[in-house]
């Protein structure tokens, strides 16, 4: 009789246990793939001469410019009124010093899509729009004389490269 009295209590405990104890569901959260490089990056600040030279030199040589060279180059830029012109001459001198790190012509033409995208990222810190990509791919394909050096020269001496 005493045992019978305990059975409903045990059943109740069992029921409560069955209802309340559930195995934890381990949830995993993730981030959707998002393109963080803005195609229409707003660049409205002109680089100072110092910034321009540092970035130009690093972009072309894959190493930092020495402080002495930086100061000397800055003085030369200041000594000339047409900054775009003098920048072109400086780029042209860099191209002639044999230290610029350039992809080969075969590498460029082997994967033009990738070359154009990488070049936009390297100089403008953004990916090209489809129109931009199409222009360069078509232009380089249809002009066998174009080398990576000429493309880099155009990028390094254009307006967008002077802004950040």
């Amino acid at each position, binding site marked *: 009789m005493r045992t019978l009295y305990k059975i409903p209590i045990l059943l109740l405990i069992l029921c409560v246990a069955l209802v309340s104890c559930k195995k934890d569901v381990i949830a995993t959260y993730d981030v959707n793939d998002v393109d963080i490089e803005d195609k229409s990056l707003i660049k409205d600040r002109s680089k100072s001469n110092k910034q321009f030279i540092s970035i130009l030199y690093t972009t072309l040589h894959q190493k930092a410019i020495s402080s002495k060279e930086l100061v000397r180059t800055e*003085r030369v830029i200041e000594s*000339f*009124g047409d900054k775009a012109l003098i920048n072109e001459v400086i780029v042209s001198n860099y191209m002639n010093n044999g230290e610029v790190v350039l992809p080969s012509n075969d590498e460029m033409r082997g994967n033009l899509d990738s070359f154009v995208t990488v070049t936009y990222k390297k100089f403008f810190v953004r990916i090209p729009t489809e129109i931009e990509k199409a222009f360069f791919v078509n232009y380089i394909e249809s002009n066998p004389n174009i080398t990576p050096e000429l493309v880099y020269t*155009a990028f390094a*001496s254009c*307006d967008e490269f002077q*802004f950040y």
Partner: protein
Amino acid sequence: MKRREFIKKAGLTAAGGVAFPYILPSGRLFAKTNAELADHVVYVLFAGGVRQQESVLQQYLSGSQGVDIGGNIMYNMLNGTPPDRKIVYGTTPAGEPIGSLPIPKVLSTSLQSQGLLFPEVESVNGGHYGGLTSLLTGNRSTAQGLKVRPNTPTIFEYLRRHRGFKASDVWFVGSGIGNSFPLLNSSNHQSYGTNYGANFVAPGITFGNEGVDILSNAKSYHPQEELEPIYKMRAFLNNSFRIKNGEVDGIRNGEDEKANIKKFVEEVFAKKSMGALARSPVSGAGDLQTLSYAAEVLKYFKPKMLVVNLTNVDGCHSNFSGYLRSLHRADHGVGWLWNYIQQEIPEMSGKTVMMATPECGRNLNPNPIQDENDWYAYDHSGDYNTSRVWSLMAGPNVPQNMVVGSESNRVGRTTDNVLTIAEIFGIKDAVLGAGFMDPTAKSLFDQI
């Protein structure tokens, strides 16, 4: 068309015509207003701070050191006999005292005899930058800050906007990049500004050791096979990233002009390496070097307007004897440049007006610094003597052997020069109409 509609449209058209002046294809806002007096102007900012006593007054040492020796040490520019004793202003032959050999005259007839001298002119600003700004803007520049472009348009901008000159028609050859000199090739005025500025070059740097290392090894690209694609790709990039006027500091030349200037830079480096640069008989660093490169710019571009800035006489702050030497050398260089234009540049010979004016004078009383001859140095801190300068001009349609004003009769201001150049190029009324000139400024031609 109904009568009411016709009247409305005719009224709007007339109002538009009044409100918006006709802009000529060249970018000029108004047609030129009077006849030109010369094809070219070379404007020497005879700067650094020049005392009247050692220049036009020809007092040599008597007006400064209490030594009773007078004489003219600027005998290419001014009439007068040189000092006969205590010669320190010349060159230094080996083993001889410093400055003991005067530089021989390069002009058989002085610029004063060939032209017009205003011996007592008011400098409206006693500092270098303010003084130079006034010489280039025709404005008193009282609110002009340092390290910023002039607030009001420069003569370069007036000439480019109202006379339609290209960027490579107007040059400013500076003595260096300090003291904000590179900012003087254009104002920051919204309606003018760098779009109408002059090409600036500080040749001591551009073509000096730094320039040789950084610029002289430029690649020569093939015009069609290499340069053309570069320009096409860059044009596409620039079209995709349109910048607004004034967003990039500095002036901009057209593509043709750029190609020409690059050729000039190459040519100058080549001439330099061959020792074939134009040079005055006595040459060297500083002002004479600046004048030498100014001559190269003149020879190559035959610009409508070239301004060259001298500065060495400012050594007077600490060395009076050095100041005398700099003054003598500057006179030598200016005389040589005038000869060079007449003899070596046929396109400019007889068609060029040269003007020279110091931007400010120097104090009447010395500071305590003495040089190797125990002579005292002079600053320019704003006394009356600092406001005393002179103006000299020569060339076609400039009266010869004429002096206007005297020590007791001041005639002219440093702000007059811009209007004078504007008159030479036929745009005086347009410049006056722009409304930025010193209200008291007058063309020097109107003060004869």
